């Protein structure tokens, strides 16, 4: 066990910057952990050991040469397989892009690299980020480190587990309808979806362009803040990217105090389908916030029930168009079919896409079709405006909104795979924020025993538009008085991997 084991990114960076250990040694340990764990959990689709080692040696040399170490100096990071780094395979968990190596690097990836981070590989995901369990990956599911029979959630499954299993301190996912917050909740780590536009999407392979947002996983809130400040900011390559100043964490004199803060609790976020253990853990978390000085205020988000249907119209419509480029002409899989051009398109897409992706492309194509647009797509746009309005009204009287991230704790692999509608409901509490473009974090807030297996529960904290710093301040305060973020999956101890919390 080395001196840097179990540190969060901030701790690791400082240790490496001090020269406690070489970056090269850290990267070697990272790959040792990956080699030990990955066969059991299937975290990575592709690792880039030679690249990472070369980067590590460069950083060691730079430090020895007197260069100032960057804010992520030597920190290994994992990228979801829908993120582009020139030369890395980004296959989106799909056969249609198997072997596809990006010819360019995403803006946010470049910023991380420039800050000293070392990408080590691309992680497993539901195909094209469509799913909540990783069961839609063309390359097999990722397993939850708390119980390998269960799903880690999704679609950013591999990245969530990379952090939860202690392989890397920071991993990036993308959150379109909850694809980072839900797996963060199911894996017992932090997952933060920023305000839409805070992080450039240039180099993030699109699912639903008006919803997709690069979102980090980490074991501490300060790591989330760190990586957000490195990644965010205007980008000439993405016209929808906001020009937001860096997050200035609102550091109160007593970081654990929430005096003066009002927390809205929407009754719609506690539906009947909410698992009992999840309900109890979230209610306990709300009581903790209250004890820290926050005022708990009941609020209503009356259009919440329309969020799932709205999301599945808008996201699939955009996806049907975004995925049109996978036609076998320029890159990726090509199946000749009957030899005609149309035949090649059809055969390629039939062989390359999985069932869920096909289902969503068909749905999205349908809702945009002549004669159906107004009834579906047009109506969904109006519903989206109503959902946004719900939040605007609620934020007139409260500072943040809190509730469960996921109605369920981790479910068994195969349990819901044959019922897409039930699977869609896993996103019921994360989708409204996505449709509204709001910042939201899932923080570990408890454990629920299911079949005598302890499983993590996530508390979702939602802020108003551009209220990212406020959300993170509340998350930090909660983290300061609770131990949930330091709990490690008990199963991993047997894999002889450090599970010691940073401050344990």
């Amino acid at each position, binding site marked *: 066990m080395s001196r840097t084991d179990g540190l969060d990114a901030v701790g690791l960076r400082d240790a490496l910057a001090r020269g406690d250990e070489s970056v090269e040694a850290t990267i070697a340990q990272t790959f040792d952990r990956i080699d030990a764990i990955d066969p059991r959990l299937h975290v990575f689709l592709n690792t880039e050991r030679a690249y990472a080692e070369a980067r590590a040696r460069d950083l060691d040399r730079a430090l020895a040469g007197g260069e100032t170490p960057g804010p992520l100096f030597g920190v290994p990071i994992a990228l979801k397989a829908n993120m582009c780094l020139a030369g890395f395979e980004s296959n989106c968990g799909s056969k249609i892009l198997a072997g596809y190596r990006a010819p360019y690097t995403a803006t946010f990836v470049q910023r991380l690299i420039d800050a000293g981070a070392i990408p080590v590989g691309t992680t497993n995901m539901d195909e094209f980020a469509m799913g909540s369990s990783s069961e839609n990956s063309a390359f097999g599911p990722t397993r939850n480190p708390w119980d390998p029979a269960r799903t880690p959630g999704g679609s950013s499954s591999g990245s969530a587990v990379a952090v939860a299993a202690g392989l890397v301190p920071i991993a990036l996912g993308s959150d379109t309808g909850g694809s980072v917050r839900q797996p963060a909740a199911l894996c017992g780590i932090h997952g933060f979806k920023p305000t839409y536009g805070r992080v450039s999407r240039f180099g993030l392979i699109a699912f639903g362009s008006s919803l997709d947002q690069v979102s980090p996983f980490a074991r501490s809130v300060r790591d989330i803040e760190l990586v957000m400040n490195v990644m965010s900011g205007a980008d000439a*390559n993405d*016209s929808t990217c906001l020009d937001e100043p860096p997050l200035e964490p609102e550091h109160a004199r007593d970081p654990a105090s929430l005096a003066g803060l009002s927390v809205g609790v929407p009754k719609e976020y506690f539906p009947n389908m909410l698992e009992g253990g999840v309900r109890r853990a979230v209610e306990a978390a709300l009581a903790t916030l209250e004890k820290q000085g926050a005022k708990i205020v009941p609020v209503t988000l009356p259009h919440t029930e329309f969020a799932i249907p709205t999301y599945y119209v808008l996201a699939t419509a955009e996806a049907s168009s975004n995925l049109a480029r996978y036609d076998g002409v320029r890159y990726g899989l090509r199946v000749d079919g009957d030899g005609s051009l149309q035949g090649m398109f059809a055969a390629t897409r039939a062989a390359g896409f999985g069932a869920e992706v096909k289902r969503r492309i068909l749905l999205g194509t349908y809702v945009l079709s002549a004669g159906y647009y107004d009834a579906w797509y047009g109506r969904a746009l109006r519903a989206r405006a109503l959902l946004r309005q719900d939040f605007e009204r609620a934020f007139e009287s409260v500072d943040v909104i809190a509730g469960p991230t996921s109605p369920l704790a981790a479910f068994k692999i195969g349990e819901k795979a044959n019922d897409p509608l039930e699977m869609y409901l896993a996103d019921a509490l994360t989708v409204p924020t996505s449709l509204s473009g709001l910042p939201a974090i899932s923080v570990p807030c408890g454990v629920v025993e299911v079949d005598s297996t302890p499983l993590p529960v996530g508390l979702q904290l939602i802020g108003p538009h551009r209220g990212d710093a406020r959300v993170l301040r509340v998350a930090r305060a909660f983290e300061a008085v609770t131990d949930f973020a330091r709990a490690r999956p008990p199963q991993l101890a047997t894999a002889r991997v450090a599970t010691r919390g940073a401050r344990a």
Partner: protein
Amino acid sequence: MSTSSGVQLAPSAGTISARTGVRWITVIGLEAHCQLKTRTKLFCGCEYVFGAPPNTLTCARCTGQPGALPVLNREALELAVRTGLALGADVAAVSKFDRKNYFYCDLPKGYQISQFDRPYCSGGGIALASGKFIRLTRIHMEEDAGKAIHDRGSATLVDLNRAGVPLIESVTEADISSSKEAHEYLTALKEILQYIGASDCDMEKGSLRCDVNISVHPQGEGWRTKVEIKNLNSFRFVEAAIEYEIQRQIIAYESGEPSQFPVQETRLWDSAKGVTRTMRSKESAHDYRYFAEPDLPPVTVDAAFLERQRSFLPELPAARRRRYRESLALSEYDAGVLTADRAVADFFEAVLRISGRPKEAANWITNEVMRAFSDPEMDARSVDELKIRPNDIAEVIAFVEKGTVNTSSARTLLREMMKTGKRAKVLVDELGLAQVQDTAQIENWCREALAGKDKIIADVKAGKEQALNALLGPVMRASKGSANPAIVKETLLRIIQAEH
């Protein structure tokens, strides 16, 4: 004009059927796609050069790589807005881009970024010489597709150099009623776009392409089914396709057989056979599933931007023509010829500024200079390629005026200048073009010419002075054109009166 089908054509007033005597009215709307002359493509930084090796002018964006995003080219918006202003259109304060979804191998993203329900421009139009105004419905920006090449064996090759090149599509109301009007409208559109520097409108390089919507109906009746003819890549083809389609539709209706009547469809012009052919029927028409492009924010244009773009607009061809006729007293013909190409008009005005002689400047340019463009010896197809500058023409004009050279020598002089690029003064000496003012020398040529011309001499003495003209030619020839004709005439008269 009568055709093999026996239908009488009278373009401006419709078409009278020789068979039935019915007067058929034609209704035409035009869509013109013009490539904007920007340095780079509409949504990426790639340059575009016609004829570059395939797939050498591409990047992650214009080849539709996963994760790449479009970024609007500011220069394209500027040129597009200038076009709108030049055509008198309303530029929308806010417009947006949409995705037009369809699969084809030359369309890298599986959709074209275009503008659907909120184009950047609406209204405006072009006045024809007759005074008729062709209204524009709208103008929108969109990206061009790549090129699919089907004639290389069994494979289809794809060249994405053109993918993402900025286009503006201008759509007229159905105000055009003949092929002649269509031609006139397109010519004017092309002139304006070239004038303001928005587009080359070079049909040979595909930078201007047209679609025609056309229907016919008996005079006094309502409009009938329209047919679209796509991808016409020359003005000649536009005219020919319209003429063909008028005939085809009239014959179809006059067959009296409803199953033969024109149907709403898209047709293609077959230039080899001179016919239009069905490309796809209405039933098989694409459903493009337009929706707002989520990767691009709405395009906003404020008053300051508009004013700035307006300030870049030059005087447009119609206004220039009017000024040439009214203030410079040029003929309609000269004004038209000079203004058709902005470079020629600018050249003319530069000559005018130096010489102050509009008529002379116009004559030299419309005759000698423009003739040079088609003369291989001159090696210049446009004003830019000429070896002479405006002050050279002004010098020639001044030489003629001062009598240094006569008009015919001046013609020779200017041609030599264009061929060699040498200055007028140098060539006048080299070629001995200066008019001979030396009366002794002229007297000698005159005496030689008079020898044996008793009849002419008698006529002149009898008062028929114009008989002298027959002697002018031989004297001028003897002088190799350098004699001053006025002096020659004077001298001849003097000799006849004094010595005969």
